[in-house]
């Protein structure tokens, strides 16, 4: 199950580039993963050979573009084992997927006094859309606490489920801490009370096999660009029984069957939720990214990344004054850390000087930072293309931070 990493790296042209005169070490895949040649080629092929609008023309290009676009939808369906492509809505990304659920399903199903349960480790994309919904309908947002390792405890979450809870919306994997949440158990707890569950899968799909039927979740959202695909494309999976009752949230072309000045009738699923010309090249690129990830295999990717992250955590943890933030037992390949007396922003600049690209800041998860009493952390995150040399360069660069600040 071990990866041929040298061969994999050769698939990613950007890894050849230099930064500040040194070869790039890219450790920011949790923010955005790089694209391999097959994805670049699929997007390029679409633009050179197929480009035209989908679902509209009778001409050859439009038919071929439609086939490629809808073919990508089928790849997504198979990738997450949805029952039907009617359950696969293309959106801009995880953020738009969650906003769609909040504005369509949420406005239809929530009333004043109702509650939405999230956790304290959510990305802003799984907080702010619910706050906006709560303001609009007078509902309340409730957040389950974390323990010191950055884990969400089931008992705590269960204790916050109330007769007024209408939705549970949680991350599958935390972007800031790497914590993998016990989502199957969370779904079971919520479903026992008849409460639907949305999972924010942005950080999960590139690293583990996601089967929406096995998870039994009602909504699952993820982005293409964290899955070695393009930016500006993402997916909302919604259980058909829910999706068919949801009102459209954006109106326009493609989402209708008929339009008169007085009224319109809606298109079938999933197009009812895809107003306007979609991101065709993005969807095709996402399809190619799924093929790529499936060809490498997520169990092998996860094992490889996990080994690198464990090695990095161990080596970094030995450095004086360094503190690992987020030490969950079940954790994805994300290493968040702080250093005594050095702001993460300075760590980021010094690492960039060594051509080591990491994320520094609040990771769009300010409540997590608040929970730990930190303004920010430095975060190294791993992808299938990282290798042991990358870990060594990371550790050497972090040691250099101490030299600069001594």
């Amino acid at each position: 199950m071990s990866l041929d990493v040298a061969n994999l790296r050769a698939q990613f042209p950007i890894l050849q580039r230099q930064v500040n005169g040194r070869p790039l070490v890219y450790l920011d895949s949790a923010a955005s993963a790089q694209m391999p040649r097959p994805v670049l080629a699929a997007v390029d092929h679409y633009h050179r050979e197929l480009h035209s609008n989908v679902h509209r023309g009778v001409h050859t290009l439009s038919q071929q573009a439609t086939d490629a676009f809808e073919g990508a939808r089928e790849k997504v369906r198979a990738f997450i084992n949805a029952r039907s492509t009617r359950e696969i809505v293309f959106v801009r990304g995880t953020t738009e997927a969650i906003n769609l659920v909040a504005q369509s399903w949420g406005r239809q199903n929530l009333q004043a006094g109702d509650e939405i349960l999230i956790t304290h480790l959510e990305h802003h994309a799984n907080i702010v859309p619910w706050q906006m919904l709560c303001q609009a309908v007078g509902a309340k947002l409730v957040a389950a606490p974390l323990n010191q390792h950055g884990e969400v405890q089931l008992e705590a979450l269960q204790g916050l489920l109330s007769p007024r809870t209408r939705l549970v919306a949680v991350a599958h994997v935390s972007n800031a801490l790497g914590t993998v949440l016990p989502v199957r158990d969370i779904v079971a707890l919520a479903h026992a009370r008849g409460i639907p569950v949305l999972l924010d899968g942005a950080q999960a799909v590139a690293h583990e096999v996601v089967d929406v039927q096995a998870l039994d979740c009602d909504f699952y959202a993820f982005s293409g660009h964290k899955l070695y695909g393009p930016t500006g494309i993402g997916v909302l999976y919604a259980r058909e029984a829910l999706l068919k009752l949801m009102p459209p949230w954006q109106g326009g072309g493609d989402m209708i069957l008929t339009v008169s000045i007085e009224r319109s009738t809606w298109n079938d699923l999933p197009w009812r939720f895809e107003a306007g010309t979609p991101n065709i090249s993005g969807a095709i690129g996402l399809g190619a990214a799924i093929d790529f990830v499936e060809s490498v295999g997520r169990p092998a990717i996860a094992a490889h990344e996990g080994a690198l992250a464990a090695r990095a955590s161990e080596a970094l943890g030995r450095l004086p004054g360094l503190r690992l933030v987020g030490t969950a037992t079940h954790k994805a390949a994300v290493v968040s850390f702080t250093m005594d007396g050095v702001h993460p922003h300075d760590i980021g600049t010094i690492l960039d000087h060594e051509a080591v690209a990491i994320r520094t800041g609040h990771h769009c998860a300010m409540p997590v930072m608040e929970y730990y009493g930190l303004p920010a952390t430095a975060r190294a995150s791993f992808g299938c293309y990282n290798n042991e040399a990358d870990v060594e360069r990371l550790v050497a660069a972090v040691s250099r931070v101490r030299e600069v600040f001594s």
Partner: protein
Amino acid sequence: MDLRDLYREVILDHNRSPRNFGRLEPADAAANGHNPLCGDRLHVTLKLDGERLDDVRFDGQGCAISVASASLMTEAVKGRSLADVDRLYQQVHALLTEQNYAPPTDLGKLMALGGVREFPVRVKCASLCWHTLHAALEAGRAEAPAVVSTEQP
């Protein structure tokens, strides 16, 4: 581009031991500065003596560049006329952003910020304190007429 050009000894020193750190209570004016990109938060309080900046302090948390810049700023502006403070504000801004800027010879320790220009994403870290001071002065000016009226019954 050399790291030592950004993290000069003066910068590291002012980061380790920031000068004029804390809050003036009571203060004539105050303002909060926030850099949401990196989470830096600064609070500037000041005392005015007519057209002179009598005293100034800052607190908050931030990266080395932002803390050192704030510390250097308080040293540079304390006791100066508001016209001088405005001039320094302009000069530091030019030092941070203009490639061929020839700074005046009396910028003193503020010259330590000269390396920031080569690190464009860090310019906001160095300028946050100056914007915050500016906002506090604006707030102070807005209150000035009220102060004047109580002193002239």
